[in-house]
């Protein structure tokens, strides 16, 4: 299957074209955030305070990279498990977030928000952090540097490989993929 090239930030036109199982290559600007950064972002929204970056159309990548060595753009940078952000993701989606990159299952609330507000959840390959880091061309900490690896970074990516897990149409690759190969293992 041909890979679909998309550019971040995302528009609704692109999102409506993406279907569960599509392999994509993402280029453009994306942001990183994981547990503690999500907690702080949502707190700012609740307090009606400005966020460290404009959420509209953005993709957040759930990652906490290893420290970069001198001369490196970024360290090893694969996805972390997404469900820990499930409590916060619907609030961010409601406020303009369009894409999330991570690994693992999402809650019913997140999947519902994806449908309702037109967003998309991409899966990346966990444990392939050395390889994935090659798609990251620049990295800058823009907020919460006290969180060390969990700080919010602005990344420029080029052909970042991912696969559509949850689309706007309610598709779920984890369910569909699993059902297709259930009882197919022969010793």
């Amino acid at each position: 299957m041909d890979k679909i090239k998309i550019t971040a930030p995302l528009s609704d036109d692109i999102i409506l074209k993406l279907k569960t199982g599509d392999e994509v290559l993402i280029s453009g600007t994306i942001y990183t955030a994981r547990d503690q950064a999500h907690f702080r972002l949502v707190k700012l929204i609740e307090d009606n305070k400005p966020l460290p970056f404009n959420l509209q159309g953005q993709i957040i990548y759930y990652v906490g990279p290893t420290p970069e060595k001198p001369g490196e753009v970024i360290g090893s940078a694969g996805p972390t498990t997404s469900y820990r952000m499930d409590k916060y993701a619907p609030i961010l989606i409601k406020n303009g977030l369009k894409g999330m990159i991570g690994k693992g299952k999402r809650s019913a609330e997140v999947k519902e928000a994806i449908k309702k507000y037109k967003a998309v959840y991409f899966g990346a390959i966990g444990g392939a952090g050395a390889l994935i880091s090659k798609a990251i061309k620049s990295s800058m900490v823009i907020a919460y540097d006290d969180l060390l690896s969990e700080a919010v970074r602005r990344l420029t990516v080029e052909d970042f490989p991912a696969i559509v897990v949850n689309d706007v149409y309610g598709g779920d690759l984890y369910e569909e993929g699993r059902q297709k190969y259930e009882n197919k293992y022969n010793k």
Partner: protein
Amino acid sequence: MRVIASEEISNAVKNLIINSSVNLPEDTYKSLKQAFEKEISGSGKTVLSQILLNAEVAKTELKPLCQDTGLAVFFVEVGKDVAVGGKNLTDAINDGTRTGYAEGFLRKSTCDPLSRKNIGNNTPAIIHYEFTDGDKIKIMYAAKGGGSENMSRLKMMRPSDGKDGVIDFVVETMREAGPNPCPPNIVGVGIGGNFERSAIIAKKALFRKLGVKNGDPELAEMESIIFEKVNNIGTGPMGFGGICTVLGVHIIKEPCHIASFPVAVNIECHSHRHSEITI
């Protein structure tokens, strides 16, 4: 009594940590390669090929295999005729952990459980000791990631649940875990002991090399039944669907209380980083 300087131990620990972060052990690589050949799902095959490529990139560019460079877990066997000079053994191992994670540019992942504030140097290491004969110290290390650890389970089963109960519990744990622990996984199962001991032996079971058969025929048979059942769930590599969900199932059992039947399932991700040294 043989005396080993604590600095020698710290240095050995540091090197184990740095080398493990970029070099996938041979048994893991071989097992992933076999999975790649066996996998029938297209996306599963793609994932496995990327994982194998990632191992090459990590080794040649000295870049960590995974950004989650783990909590540092050690199983240490201390001979009765050896002593540590200088610092005590726990401090020596923690010193090596601190310098290994710093000098290797590895992620520091220990934090206060309530405030969530990062400790900043990846200590304290998790250390399990055993005392043996001889005058050597054997240090086994694993970089244990959070994603797979989070999907692990412990259950105080009823003795009447029997072998089938254990098999069902492990399979259900893996079904529930689905894509989250970065499959294909290695499953460590601890049967018996007590509450905490079952978890420790489940962790220890992960250290057995992939492809090495369990010496106990009864446990070997249970491992093979669980292996087949879990690979029939359909989760596949990274959960995108497929027949390679586990690379191995490793069981250790120990005697338990007549009223108890503790079973722990410790899940390990495909980035199965383990190594050892005997000093």
